[in-house]
């Protein structure tokens, strides 16, 4: 301690000056060169190895999407916003689509609602597996990383069969979805859910119940119910602190009002609970996927686009849909021409969905032009980043990766 030095515990040698330090702490800069996944920096002030001040310095992959959106056609913003979190593309763009639909006054048909729900859950699983894999790397558990990324491929393949793209699907569009599922999709989806259920038990064995991992995570980074509420934390991190809040439950959107699922809530609020919350959510997502494909099988060849847009569809689009031309990849089916010249009535709309990492919020304002007047995007990771500042002080530096990873942070998403 600085005060001890000046009080004479160190002998004063001739020519040696002892000055009292105002602070006996170091500043440690973690990042911005990829501390785990994505670019961010955490400035940590440490006293010994205990963190006393943590300052998240973010914005290294900022793209000003809110500004770019003001110069693009309504439909062209969907592929733009997707770039925030390509592994969670449907969830990330869905509230934008919903907000614009509220302004347009169009409701998607039932089949589109189920198709969106289906892709949202596929995305959620892929996103959780990605987060868990990175978490594994943080704790030096590279087996989980390999497993999670390998299993994530199953769900990326499902999304590809459904949408034609592995990651940036641009699947939900105003009034419906871009295309229907192929006929063999329900069977493949059931195989995938069966496989994943078995794998989750193995995840618990190798990772969550592993004594080494538990000793790193248990009782580390405890966030109480009140603190989580106060900081406005979202997603599985919030539910791991005992708050029963999920947009799918509190304001059901798409088909979530019609399917049965549970919201896993944990009381502990530590890093281990946050990891468990993700595993349990994957289990619930598998149930939703099964219910959605059951419904889709029972209602084949229904319309998946609002009539207003569908009637402007080119003949080829309708032929492919009605099964007259098979999906052979021979034809390039363009979107309806109405989207290109779309003007949205003036108004303000707000929409929220539960994305993989938590609540995703859009505020859209239109002044009747072919581009938005203002789009405000608040992504789940942006709302979680404040936790680093208030939760980490008091913990040891070695707990930083455990807390940091348990929040499933994703810099491209919070930077926008």
């Amino acid at each position, binding site marked *: 301690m600085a005060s001890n030095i000046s009080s004479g515990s160190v002998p004063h040698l001739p020519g040696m000056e002892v000055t009292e330090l105002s602070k006996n702490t170091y500043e440690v800069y973690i990042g911005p060169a990829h501390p785990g996944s994505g670019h961010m920096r955490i*400035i940590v002030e440490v006293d010994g190895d205990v963190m006393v001040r943590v300052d998240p*310095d*973010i*914005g290294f992959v*900022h793209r*000003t999407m*809110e*500004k*770019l959106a003001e*110069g693009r056609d309504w439909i062209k913003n969907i592929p733009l916003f997707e770039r925030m979190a390509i592994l969670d593309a449907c969830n990330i763009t869905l509230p934008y689509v919903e*907000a614009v639909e*509220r*302004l347009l006054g169009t409701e998607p048909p039932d089949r589109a609602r189920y198709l969106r729900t289906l892709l949202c859950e596929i995305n959620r699983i892929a996103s959780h597996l990605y987060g868990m894999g990175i978490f594994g790397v943080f704790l030096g558990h590279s087996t989980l990383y390999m497993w999670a990324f390998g299993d994530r491929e199953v769900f990326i393949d499902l999304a590809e069969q459904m949408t034609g793209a592995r990651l940036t699907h641009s699947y939900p569009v105003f009034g419906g979805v871009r295309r229907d599922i192929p006929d063999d999709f329900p069977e493949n989806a059931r195989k995938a859910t069966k496989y994943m259920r078995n794998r989750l038990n193995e995840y618990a064995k190798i990772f969550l119940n592993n004594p080494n991992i538990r000793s790193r995570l248990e009782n580390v980074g405890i966030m109480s*119910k009140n603190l*989580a*509420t*106060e*900081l*406005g934390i979202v997603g599985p991190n*919030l539910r791991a602190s005992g*708050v*029963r*809040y999920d947009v799918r439950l*509190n*304001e059901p959107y798409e088909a979530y009002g019609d399917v049965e699922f549970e919201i896993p809530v944990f009381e502990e609020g530590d890093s281990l609970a946050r990891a468990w919350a993700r595993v349990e959510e994957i289990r619930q997502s598998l149930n939703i996927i099964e219910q959605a494909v059951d419904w889709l099988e029972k209602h084949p060849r229904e319309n998946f686009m609002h009539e207003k847009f569908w009637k402007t569809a080119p003949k080829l689009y309708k032929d492919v849909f009605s099964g007259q031309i098979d999906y052979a990849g021979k034809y390039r089916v363009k979107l309806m021409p109405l989207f290109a010249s779309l003007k949205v009535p003036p*108004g*303000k*709309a*707000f*929409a*929220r969905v539960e994305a993989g990492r938590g*609540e995703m*919020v859009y*505020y859209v*304002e239109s002044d009747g032009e072919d581009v938005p*007047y*203002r789009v*405000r995007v*608040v992504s789940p990771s*942006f*709302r979680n*980043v*404040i936790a680093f500042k*208030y939760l980490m002080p008091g913990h040891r530096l070695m707990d930083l990766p455990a807390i940091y990873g348990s929040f499933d942070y994703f810099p491209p998403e919070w*930077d926008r």
Partner: protein
Amino acid sequence: MVGGEKKLISIQDSLKNVLKDNIISIEQAKGYIDVLVPTDKLVDSAKKLKEFGFDHVKSVTAVDYIAKKQFKITYHISSYLNEELSKYIIGLSTIINRDDPHLPSLSKIWVSAEFQEREVYEFFGIIFDDHPDLRLLLLTPVVAALKPLRKDFVVKEESDNIEVDYAAYNATKWW
């Protein structure tokens, strides 16, 4: 949806009861209820709404109405712990002058607004008085000096060089 509409009317009534004459106007927008209050009653309204049960901020949104020379700041708030209130989103809004953009910070009432107010500060140049830690969050001082989300900032092509304002660089608080 008859039941839903009735509920909305009752939440509007209870908002009127809570905020009383602070309200300039209350309007049902699409997906949220927009409550406009004067800037000097913003803190008072926020305190009352927090007591009522709205415990966190979802989004702090600024919109630049350049033609009217105004900024509209909206705090979209809701509740986690009160299940009934969690179904609603309230937009607590205030309008400020564009030439001298100042408004009181609500970060001490809702901690969850802290980082979002910092973001609005750097993108619009709007000053939040009494903010505990008003620094740049996402941008560098050079870009923040341009106030990129204001409507008079026009996005240049990527090949164009952005003029570097070194005076702004030196004047802005940095790490």
